[in-house]
């Protein structure tokens, strides 16, 4: 991932008003995590041990007045499904979920299993999502998904394919 593409993700988060991020890193987004961890991003990053824990930390941060983003891998989404389902369907709390989309065009590895699991999992948890395939859509989509999630009090996700991150 090029530095300027990672910057776009962080810029989108900042323009969306995100001030708190929690996640577990993955190779595709590692530059994003590193940027978030540096304090100049203005976003407080908390590294969790498990994506389900990360979802819980986001829920607490939201209840405390923060605007959190859950930044997780497609693998991590599967780990976090129970907690995201509780948060979205039972508590109805808006998590902004940002996921680099493994297994789509541009991915140097064939990881097609995530094509089978990611969108069906989000649908099952009733989390609306957008797939971003062009880098010029990154910032706008993060902002719109965040704004909608907060207005609806429902979670929303953005999936970034490798095509958008090249």
């Amino acid at each position, binding site marked *: 991932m090029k530095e300027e593409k990672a910057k776009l993700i962080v810029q989108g988060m900042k323009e969306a008003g995100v001030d*708190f991020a*929690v996640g577990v890193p993955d190779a595709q987004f590692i530059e994003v995590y590193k940027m978030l961890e540096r304090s100049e991003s203005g976003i*407080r990053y*908390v*590294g*969790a*041990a*498990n994506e*389900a*824990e*990360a*979802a*819980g*930390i*986001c*829920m*607490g*941060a*939201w*209840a*405390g*007045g*923060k605007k*959190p983003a859950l930044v997780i891998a497609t693998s991590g989404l599967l780990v976090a499904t*129970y*907690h995201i389902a*509780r948060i979205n369907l*039972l*508590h*109805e*709390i*808006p998590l902004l979920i940002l996921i680099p989309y493994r297994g789509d065009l541009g991915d140097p590895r064939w990881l097609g299993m995530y094509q089978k699991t990611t969108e069906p999992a989000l649908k099952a948890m009733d989390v609306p999502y957008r797939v971003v395939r062009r880098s010029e859509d990154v910032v706008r989509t993060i902002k719109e998904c965040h*704004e909608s999630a*907060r*207005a*609806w*009090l429902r979670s929303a996700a953005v999936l970034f394919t490798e095509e958008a991150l090249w």
Partner: protein
Amino acid sequence: MVSRYALLKKLAGVVADDTLVVACIGNTTAFWGQLKEREANLFHVTLGMCTPVAHGLALALPKRKVVALDADGNLLLNLGSLGTVANEAAKNLTIIVFDNGNYLGSHKKEPGMRTATGGKMNLAKVAEASGIDSACMVDDAEAFEQKVKAALGSNGPHVIVAKIAALDDDRPEKSRRIPDPRQNKYEFAKYIERTEGVAILGGGLGNFG
């Protein structure tokens, strides 16, 4: 052995009105919700999520005291969260773990199934080895009250593992309805908005026509 309800009664006597309390699912939520009418409660937080939710709250509101009412089976699902708590070092966070060595110990008239702490595992030592210096284990009401008071009056993070009876044989009268997760969310968020001057419930139109 001391009961969960006996300890919750002690807690109700010492916790300040503006201390935020996050309760895990099961009888911890059920009993705490009967004990005290207070706005500063988040209920029904499921397995593996109680300590993380309290942690997120504590990080968001560093000037507010936050207490997690966690339980052995609940915490075991996300044990790594103790390492995160240690590293983030939120001074305002106290984690109480009601450790009955049991899953669903409280559910029926007999104990449920043994957890790892009902066997060889020691959660206070796990917390300490996770990097939480203030971690202790108590097994009676007086020690519990004293540790809770000390934790609420000093910098954390603190972990208090309370060894309790496997079965909840004393339980409160059901005197009120515990708000469901959505009602609880609205009331809690409004309370935080009012007392902290932050906007939580968002900019929806409030108009579904």
